[in-house]
Structures are given as C-alpha cells and as structure tokens.
C-alpha cells in the first residue's frame, strides 16, 4: 500500500487539476449569477476543439512547436470572448430571478445545441494534438513515468486558484463581484453596473471551462461527449465543495479525483461511481457542501 502512495497522490493531483478548471468556473458563475449552468461542459469541449484545431494548424504550417503552449491559452481566451458575452446577453440574462427549473432547462437546451454544433463543425472522429505533451517529456516518480505536462497542469491549477483569490480579494473587479454576490439590489442602488458584472463573471467562467478543455487536449483525444463526461464530475466537485466556494472547489477536486483514483487502483468496478458515492456521503452530513453555508430565504 505504501509503495503505491506516491503514484496515488500524483494521479489524484493530476486528475484534480483538470477537474478544478471546470469546477471553479461553474462555481464562480453560480456564486455571482445564482445559475447552475448545465452548458458549462460544452464550453470545456469547445475550448478543447479550438485548441486542438489551432495546434494542428500551427504544426501543419511549420511554425515553432513551442507556440502550441500560448495557443492553448489563446484558444480559451477566444472561446470566452466570443461565447461569454454572446450567451450571457442573448440567453442567460432572461433566466435571472426565475425558478431554478427554468434555468436548468434553458442551459440544458443550450448544452444540447452546442453539442450538436460541435458534431457539425468538427465531425465525429477524435482529434489529437499532443505536441505540448511531447515537447515536455516524462519524469520518473515512484518508479512510474509521468508526463511533465501533467506536473505543469498541477502548477497551472494552483496558479488559477491563487489568481482567483487575488482577483476576488485584491482587485476592484473582485470587490464589485463580491458586492453583487452579497446583494444585487443594493449594489445597483450604489451605482454598480450589475449587468456588466454579470457579463464579466460569466465570461470568466467560460474562460476557465475553455481553459480546462484546452489544457486537456495534449493528453486526451477530443471527441463528442467530452463535455458531458467532464461536466458530471464538475457538478460533483461543486456539490462537495459547496456551490460558490472557490477554495471549496479546489479541495473537492482533490477529493473527487482521489476517490476515482483510489477506485481504479483498488476497486476498479467502482471507478465510475466512486466520486458520486463520496458526494452522497458529504451531502448527507453537510447538505450545503464542505464549505457552503446555509442561507435564509423569505417565504
């Protein structure tokens, strides 16, 4: 068991990093807009498709392969800049203040539309673009070869975590978002442009999801269904960490990834359900998640 400890930790952290990018965006959008965006996973897969396509174009054009690293970031930014404001202004804003069931139905409809659009544009076969992974090579840890790219993902996830903390706590935009989260009406009365705050928060959420997808491409094939697979895990993370909790998303990502990895190592038959068994256990004890707090509601 002990000789497995290092590989277990490494695998859990590498898996957690990828889940975290998606979950933190999901939880950010929920905390600001009070919307559980089911279409969030589609932004992940679109980010993956754009990143893979851009990487393939770079290589086929004979450009420096190291450019594939900034291309990952650029892809996520492109997806966020185009889809973030577009989706928020044309669709999401009509759901503010409405019943949760309507919000979920609208975003689920958007998810289905985006999934079919991806099939139309990118086809049904897997796309592979592993240049960044190949450039970084491998390292032996605990007798097992790991991709250095996996280590980079862990570092990037930490950078996003601390970057988000810095944004919320130490920037003007962060303070505006906190004010909107605390009370939208009072924020509006104080002169805060809440519409703009909503667009920015949603776009940032889309960027984080697309970044997760873009960063996943060097180690996975991009195919239809990728968004749904990731989204389900991101929901488990958000539920365990507490919706709207950024640090909670980080801890919950490690818990979910750890449960899955432990299952693969010691009980492979349960590897799919393990994260959800953990989620169930957490919600039975703490219905608002590990870091969530109960809120009062006027009736």
């Amino acid at each position, binding site marked *: 068991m002990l*000789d497995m400890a290092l*590989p277990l930790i490494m*695998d859990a952290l*590498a*898996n957690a990093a990828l889940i975290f990018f998606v979950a933190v965006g999901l939880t950010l959008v929920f905390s600001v807009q009070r919307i559980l965006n089911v279409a969030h996973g589609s932004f992940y897969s679109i980010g993956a498709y754009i990143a893979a396509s851009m990487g393939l174009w770079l290589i086929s054009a004979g450009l420096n392969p190291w450019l594939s690293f900034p291309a990952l970031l650029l892809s996520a930014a492109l997806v966020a800049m185009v889809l973030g404001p577009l989706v928020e202004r044309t669709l999401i804003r009509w759901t503010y203040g409405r019943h949760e069931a309507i919000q979920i139905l609208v975003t689920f409809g958007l998810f289905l539309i985006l999934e079919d659009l991806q099939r139309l544009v990118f086809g049904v076969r897997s796309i592979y673009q592993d240049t960044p992974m190949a450039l970084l090579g491998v390292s032996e840890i605990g007798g097992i070869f790991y991709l250095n790219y996996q280590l980079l993902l862990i570092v990037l996830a930490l950078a996003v975590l601390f970057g988000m903390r810095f944004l919320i706590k130490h920037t003007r935009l962060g303070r505006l978002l906190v004010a909107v989260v605390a009370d939208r009406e009072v924020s509006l009365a104080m002169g805060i442009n809440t519409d703009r705050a909503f667009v920015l928060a949603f776009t940032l959420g889309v960027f984080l999801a697309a970044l997760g997808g873009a960063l996943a491409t060097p180690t996975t*094939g991009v*195919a239809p*269904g990728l968004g749904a697979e990731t989204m389900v895990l991101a929901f488990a993370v958000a539920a365990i960490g507490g919706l709207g909790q950024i640090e909670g998303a980080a801890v919950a990502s490690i818990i979910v990834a750890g449960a899955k990895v432990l299952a*693969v190592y010691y009980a492979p038959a349960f*590897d799919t359900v393990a994260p959800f068994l953990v989620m169930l256990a957490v919600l039975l004890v703490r219905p608002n998640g590990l870091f969530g707090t109960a809120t009062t509601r006027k009736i």
Partner: protein
Amino acid sequence: MKHIVRTAGTLMASLVLATQAMAQDKPEQIDVGVFTFTSGAPAAYGQPGAQGAELMVDLINAAGGIDGVPLRATIVDEAQGAEGVIAEYRRLAGETSYQVMIAALSSSNCLALAPVAEQMQMPTISWNCDTHQLFLNQQLDYTFRPNGNTIPEFVAYVAYLLQVNPDIERVAIINPDYAFGHDAAEIVKAAFRAFKPDVEIVAELFPSLGASSYQTEVSRLSAARPDAIFSNLWGADLENFVRQAQPRGLLTQSQTVLALGETILQRIDLPDGVIVGMLGDGYWLTPDAQANEDTVAFAEEYATRFGEYPVFPTMKMANSFMVMKAAYEAAIEANDGEWPSRDEIAAALGGIETATFTGTARLREDNDGYVDQVIGVTGPSDTYDFSVITNMVRYDGEALMAPLGEDPIAWIETLTPEFLETLPEPGSYK
C-alpha cells in the same frame, strides 16, 4: 358473424404469409440495411466499415450487380442506441425491397436484433459482433455470423502470447466496461488457467466506454509491473489509450497485446514487438490476401478513395458483402433462376462456404462461423510508412472453437498446455 370474421382473418393472414414465402419478381434494385457506428467514439472503428460497404456496393454494381440487379446500401448509425437500432431495423425490414440486413457492429445490438430478425424472418448477416453468447442456448434461423466469435479470438491471443513468451507470470487486463470487455477477460483468464495455471492476474481494469483519459489506468498498470498487458479496447478508446500509454513507456515496459491493434497501425507509430491482430483473418497484408488480386485491387481502390488502406472492420464488412452475394447467387440457382424470397436466401446462407478477400467464410450448423485467427507483432515495413504485422501465425478457426452444443468457457477449461504444441508456430504464416 364471429365465425366469418375469424375465417376471413385467417385467410388474409395466410395470404400475406404465402405471398412472402413465394418466389418474388426480380426487383429493379436490391436494398441492404447496413448497421454500423458512424458517430461517437466507436465511429473510429465503424466508419471504415461503412466505407467498406460503400466501396463494395460500387464494385458489385460495376460488375453487373447481383444477377444483373444493382445494390443500394442504407447505412444506419448504431450510436442511437439499441431502441433506435431496433426501430430502424423494423422500419427497413417492413419494406419488401430489403431482403438481407448486414447488422450489426455492436454485440449488444446483435443480441437485441437477433429475436427481431427471427420475428420478421429477415436474413441478417452479423458482420462484426462477436459475442459468443449470440448462439448460446438458442437456435437462430435468420441470423448468420460468418465473422467468428470471441472464443477463438481471445484463446488465440493467449496461445500466441505463451508461444512467444512462455515464461510470463504476471498479466494485467484493461478492457472496455461492457459485455465485450468482460467476456474477453473471462475467456483470457480461462485460457491462462488451461495453458499456464500459475499465471497471476495482477490488475483487471474496465474503463468506461468512450472515456477520454486513461492516465490513471496507465499509472495503475505501470505500478502492477505485469509481464504482459492484454487489452481489447477498440475504436477511439484504443487510440486514446495507446496515445496516452506510449509516451509513458507502458507499451515497452510490458509485452502488450492489443487485440484490435491492427485498426490503429496506420494512425499511430506503435513500437515494434506489440502483439496485434484483427479478430479473425481480415488483414489486407496477409500472404493469402496479397496472393488474391481482387483483394489487392480492393485495398488500392479503398486507399485512393478514402486516403488510407483498409483496416480489418473494412475487410469484415467487405467479406460480409461477399457472403451475401454468394448466398443470393446460390439461392437464385437453387430457385431455377427465379428471384429468391427471404426464406430462400436464409436457406442459402445456412452452412454456406465461400471464398472471401482474406480466406474462407464457413458456417456450421448453428449459423456461427469458423474463421481463422491471424496474429503477429508490430514491425517496420519496407513498403509503407507505418508499422505492419510481422511474425504472423494463422490458427485454424475450427481448432479454437468450442464444439457445437458445448459451453465455450467450460470447453476452454478442458484444454491443456499440450494443446499449444498442436498449433502452428508464430512466424509460420508467410
């Protein structure tokens, strides 16, 4: 009154059945329903099958069709799930222009379609599904499988592995998490118990079908330190797994067996020495295939049209079309030149033996096929810029099939290590 209604109903039903059973007029066109995956992760495997069907239709039509009647294939996507597949099958089978179905790719869809084929009396050629459960404990009169099944396929891999590496002791398995993966694991374990009982299964993983990441599984397999890794992952899952395992050294750390590995040889640079095969004999570069000028022409035409050489799902599909054509011709001959009914085509398919692009298709009494198993290892090619299969062996399909009526797993358990000595040596097929 009741009596009149009942009699009229009986007469009408008899009339309908009699009409179906009678020889039919020669149609202007033969419609064939072809079921495969054209979307989703399995499309990486199913699309070459669909392309093979397209090319075969064109080739048969260019040569005058079947008895002068041109073919038209209707491709049905199996990604819609079993309910949708059954609905599509029923819809097509309801039209008289469809006299044969070539269905299906997925074993679960074949199991679902078999009773429908019986009910609708529709001759159905299983072009790819190979679960040994299809003909287990049931007599199917309208389902025919010239494609072979999981028992000879996976027993052959264990035999080959032990022939080239008799000292292995630790084996890991990574298969897809559904019947095909679990059945294969059971067969492989049973074969090891029969041929080398001291082999220990050190890891047994069943990742979800369509999973995108295998990094944890790669770590787990590496940590288990197996002498050999067996996998029957397929389609995009196989491609994903190999692309993630290879940079981390897994494929060279252990003797890897990729049961469906032939499908990715043109897309991925596999290291030399990986044991790969094609679940049958459907490799366009076997000595038999290369000696057949029709096969060579088919492969070249396929490469010209689709940009890559055929893979074994293509060959399985093409071979199924050849079986269908042979059955039509036999049925027409048996019918004194008249156009045959579905029942007459089904009768011609029973016990059929006909040459294919890669060998011979031969059905036994239960409509299951004897198919030779070709296995080898990856190696460099002087002619192509991708790995080819070298050190090949061709096992006689009948020798690896459980006798008719016997439980296949129980039959494997009766085999002994001496059985391996009766098989041809790796490298003997050249």
